[in-house]
């Protein structure tokens, strides 16, 4: 039975043509990230906006692998980020001879193991119950990193920081250094995620998300892939946590990785798009830039007569409203909205 509509055929052709364009798009993106941004960006923008945005995107990507692609909702993101941050710190204190990249990978692996431990019971439980497990992980980890001073080397403030960021004796504590560290890691890990998602690993994850009983019946080892998702997701979150503490904040305590951080990451992937890679960046941009935009609008309209607390609460309410709006209108987030727009533009000449 042949497909009758000419429009559909041509649309398919047009879309595959536009698929070739990503090659150029990616090259352009890389040049932008690696050359243009650091050259033109002011220190303020890099330090306070772009670096945290990239790190949050990475965290979002990590959570997305578990929640958006494998369908396992987790509220423990903050906790796993903390594991990464504190592990990196401890490597720096107790094994300073380990170069930073290796320490980061090590911290990621530790976070992966912790994530795996909390994810193991997930083979038997689903939905809300899984959420409880992740909340348990979150609270437990918060308690651990507060109550056991060994983790922050007995400092009185309870915070951790690396004495200086150094890459093989090259000091990268400067704005540019931290930016390049962050952006390189984000680019590499995004590439890895893309590879995983376009392989049988990603397809198995999505099968588990869409209908895990069917996945089991066609021979996919569901437990194994779920565990893998927990581990890899936590790996990403751990590294994001380490970057958050040391490439962005400079020093951090467990407060930076509390339950609100977990919610924030979840919001990033809901708004940006669960089950997409670009969605994480869009969501992180949204979450990072919205407060600024709001600030700007309010200040210019009310000329600075607005209480900071009130502003925060208004922001909160607006976020909540946006979450609901997205869930109703476009559950696949802004990424889907953009994709739909692209498709409509591609087909537009043929709509008549």
């Amino acid at each position: 039975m042949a497909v009758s509509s000419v429009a559909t055929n041509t649309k398919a052709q047009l879309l595959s043509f536009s698929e070739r364009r990503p090659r150029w798009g990616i090259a352009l993106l890389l040049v932008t990230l690696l050359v243009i941004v650091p050259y033109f960006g002011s220190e303020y923008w890099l330090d306070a906006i772009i670096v945290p945005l990239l790190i949050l995107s990475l965290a979002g990507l990590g959570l997305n692998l578990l929640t958006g692609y494998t369908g396992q909702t987790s509220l423990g993101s903050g906790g796993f980020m903390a594991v990464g941050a504190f592990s990196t710190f401890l490597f720096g204190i107790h094994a300073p001879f380990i170069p930073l990249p290796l320490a980061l990978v090590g911290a990621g692996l530790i976070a992966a193991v912790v994530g795996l431990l909390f994810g193991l019971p997930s083979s038997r439980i689903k939905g809300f119950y899984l959420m409880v497990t992740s909340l348990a992980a979150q609270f437990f980890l918060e308690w651990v990193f507060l109550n056991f001073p060994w983790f922050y080397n007995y400092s009185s403030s309870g915070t951790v920081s690396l004495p200086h960021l150094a890459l093989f004796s090259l000091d990268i504590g400067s704005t540019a250094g931290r930016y390049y560290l962050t952006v390189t890691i984000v680019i590499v890990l995004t590439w890895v995620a893309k590879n995983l998602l376009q392989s049988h690993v990603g397809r198995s994850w999505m099968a588990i998300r869409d209908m895990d009983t069917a996945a089991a019946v066609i021979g996919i080892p569901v437990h194994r892939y779920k565990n893998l998702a927990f581990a890899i997701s936590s790996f990403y979150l751990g590294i994001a946590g380490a970057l958050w503490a040391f490439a962005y904040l400079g020093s951090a305590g467990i407060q930076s990785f509390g339950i609100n951080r977990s919610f924030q990451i979840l919001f990033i992937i809901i708004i940006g798009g669960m089950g997409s890679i670009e969605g994480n960046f869009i969501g992180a941009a949204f979450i990072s830039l919205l407060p600024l935009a709001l600030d700007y609008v309010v200040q210019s309209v009310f000329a600075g007569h607005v209480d900071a607390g009130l502003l925060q609460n208004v922001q909160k309410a607006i976020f909540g409203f946006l979450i609901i709006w997205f869930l109703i209108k476009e559950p696949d987030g802004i990424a889907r909205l953009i994709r739909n727009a692209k498709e409509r533009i591609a087909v537009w000449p043929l709509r008549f």
Partner: protein
Amino acid sequence: MSTFIETFVGGLLAGTMYSLVAIGFVLIYKASGVFNFAQGSILLFAALTFVTLKEAGIPFAAALVMTILILIAGSVAIERLILRPLANRSPMTLFMATLGLSYIVEGGAQGLMGAQVHQLDLGIDDVPLFIGDVLISQFDLVAAVTAVVLVGILALFFNKTRIGISLRAIADDTRAALSIGINQNRILQIVWSVAGIVGLVAGMLWGARQGVQFSLSLVVLKALPVLIIGGFTSIGGAIAGGLIVGAAENLAETYIGPLIGGGTTSWFAYFLALVFLYIRPAGLFGERVIERV
């Protein structure tokens, strides 16, 4: 030995407060299958509204009635604007919507009524009572009695009134209930209002104990383990779960706490819940869900 009994009883009584909060969740879960993350925020909102009205000089009873009316209006709005558009979506989606709702309610509540702590005086003194050898707090006792009375009223409501029976019908088999003409939208509005009122009572009690402030909304995070242990679908379970968590938490803090530096209350309940998840995922009184291919 009396320390043990004291800790245990004290925990039980404290646990009734958890039960009160958990009951609000059970109501909504039974009616619409959604875990209402916003219950805590609604609790905060209700308590804040009440306190603000009282502080503005409005007498107790009138403030109570006004708050209840506002809650009902809110429930109608929630049903119309959030629940209806998301009617056939997955429970996860609905949960995330309640997450968003909690942000709206919190932001709105504190934006409108301020973030400072409000003292709430319900006229119950927190004096220690002695029953035999055991020391218990009068306030806790009153809270427990309130919970019992509330549960009694709810039981009557669900078993004797038409609305209550309709709710149980919807919870049991939504399609069948709809096909005999039960108005699901109305039922949802009613249930959310009732849950809101339960939240108000819980909020008032909690608020009287620790002041009405933002941290009140965090009780929701305590409710989850209670619901895991007791089951999401039974009020009896919510009570049992609350009592178990309350007692266990208190005992843990007293006996295990000193061994590991204290602060066990932030996570012990969750660990207990995890243990239950392994042994009995549906909770003590919950229903088991069977999946069909």
